[in-house]
């Protein structure tokens, strides 16, 4: 038995080493590296969240791990994308380097509870600002404005906009904002909810569904990967992405807004965009932050 098992074990060990090596080389050229400011806890008002985080030298950030272009974890375990770059900019302004950021996966359903229970300091996770959510958490930003759109086969001429979806099977994610929007505003659409957006691709290719619908930025990622798909029509909703944080922490919220505005001005926001989502999407004007 001993000699028999040695082979596979050696093979597995070799595979692990190879993977580790791949991870290492990926690391070097991933994304941009926003500047880390030379600040200390004493530079912030005493007792503020900023002072506490700067003092600790670490911050816990909730982001998506499965969203191409915004927050996607590669084989090496660190997420990459525009949301991730935004989080790095904020951490950098607190004097926290990249390795002081602890990434935590947040999915659509647990973002509020993670913030409320303090498991994360901020959430940057394609997080649409809306009034219901504002009752539970508060939002800095928006730092980007997306909108719901439609993806269909390039050969499908029937669907040009949301009004053409009546009677069609449209794939989306179970329990997501786009699903709720379709159910409410396009009741004639037959909604086919899956567990993840990537699950919609095979049924779409095979013709089991006619289209899929979610935020344009997500669809653009899929269309860029595979020319058989095409994004149709203009976005038909406004989804301002904000940075979620504790409900009553107004000082922290205003401070993040300042950091965002600074990043708009000095071009780091544009740089972050171009290094990530900008590879398939045009560079937009940064949206005005909403200091509600």
């Amino acid at each position, binding site marked *: 038995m001993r000699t028999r098992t040695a082979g596979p074990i050696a093979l597995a060990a070799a595979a692990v080493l190879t993977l580790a090596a791949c991870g290492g080389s990926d690391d070097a050229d991933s994304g941009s590296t926003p500047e880390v400011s030379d600040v200390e806890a004493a530079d912030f008002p005493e007792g503020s969240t900023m002072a506490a985080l700067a003092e600790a030298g670490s911050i816990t950030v909730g982001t998506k791990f499965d969203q191409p272009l915004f927050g996607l974890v590669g084989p090496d375990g660190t997420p990459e994308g525009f949301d991730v770059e935004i989080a790095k900019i904020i951490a950098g302004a607190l004097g926290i380097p990249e390795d002081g950021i602890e990434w935590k996966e947040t999915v659509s359903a647990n973002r509020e509870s993670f913030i409320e229970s303090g498991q994360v300091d901020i959430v940057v996770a394609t997080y649409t600002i809306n009034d219901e959510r504002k009752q539970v958490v508060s939002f800095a930003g928006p730092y980007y404005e997306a909108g719901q759109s439609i993806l269909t086969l390039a050969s499908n001429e029937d669907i040009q906009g949301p009004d053409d979806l009546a009677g069609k099977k449209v794939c989306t994610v179970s329990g997501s904002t786009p699903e*709720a929007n379709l159910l409410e505003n396009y009741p004639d659409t037959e909604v086919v909810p899956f567990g993840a957006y990537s699950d919609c691709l095979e049924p779409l290719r*095979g013709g089991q569904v006619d289209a899929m619908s979610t935020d344009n930025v997500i669809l653009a990622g899929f269309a860029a990967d595979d020319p058989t798909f095409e994004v149709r029509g203009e976005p038909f909703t406004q989804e301002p992405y904000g940075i979620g944080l504790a409900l009553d922490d107004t000082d922290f919220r205003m401070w993040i807004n300042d950091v965002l505005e600074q990043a708009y001005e000095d071009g780091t926001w544009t740089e972050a965009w171009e290094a990530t989502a900008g590879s398939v999407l045009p560079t937009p004007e940064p949206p005005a932050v909403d200091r509600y």
Partner: protein
Amino acid sequence: MDLIADNLPAYLSGFRVTLQLTLLSGAFALVWGTVLAAMRVSPLSTLRGLAVTYVELLRNTPLTLVFFFLVFVAPQFGVLPPLGFWTAVIALSAYTSAFVCEAVRSGINGIPVGQAEAARAIGLTFSQTLGLVVLPQAVRSVVPPLINVLIALTKNTSVAAGFAVVELLASGRRIALANPSEATLALVGVGLFYLVITIPAGYLAGVLERKVAFAR
């Protein structure tokens, strides 16, 4: 609790789908699982081999993967199952029947071999022996494990939420999204509705067990 009362129609429509999934898949799984068990004890080695392969394959594959094969892999080989409810019924019955088979087989093995020998001695064929003598006794003794399998099936229907079926969990997620401040409560509600199925099932198992059990 207001949240659950306010969203009762949404919960109930999800609950109905979960119940339909459970009952249909449960019925198919019981039938197919019993057939598999009969194959596993049959004198034909081909049948035994087929049944063993099927059971080992399905029993040792995560249910999510069974769904995955049906929904994403089968279409690549030209098999296009209708998305949604019936795909879920097929996946759930195929998966659960492997467990039913093993429970029924354990019951069959628990019947003293003399019973089958006596049946053969009076000239009954294999299928008559199994259908008239062995299975009626075997099934009685496996009521508790079978109810166990069906309770597991009830909860397993939630996997269908990720594959185009709007059952209880998917409805709960919609409710949670619409009420972010009470998202946890929305999921507690989902749990309560599962209990509505599983607790009576457990009670039923107790009653059935007392009714059909016999001393040996």
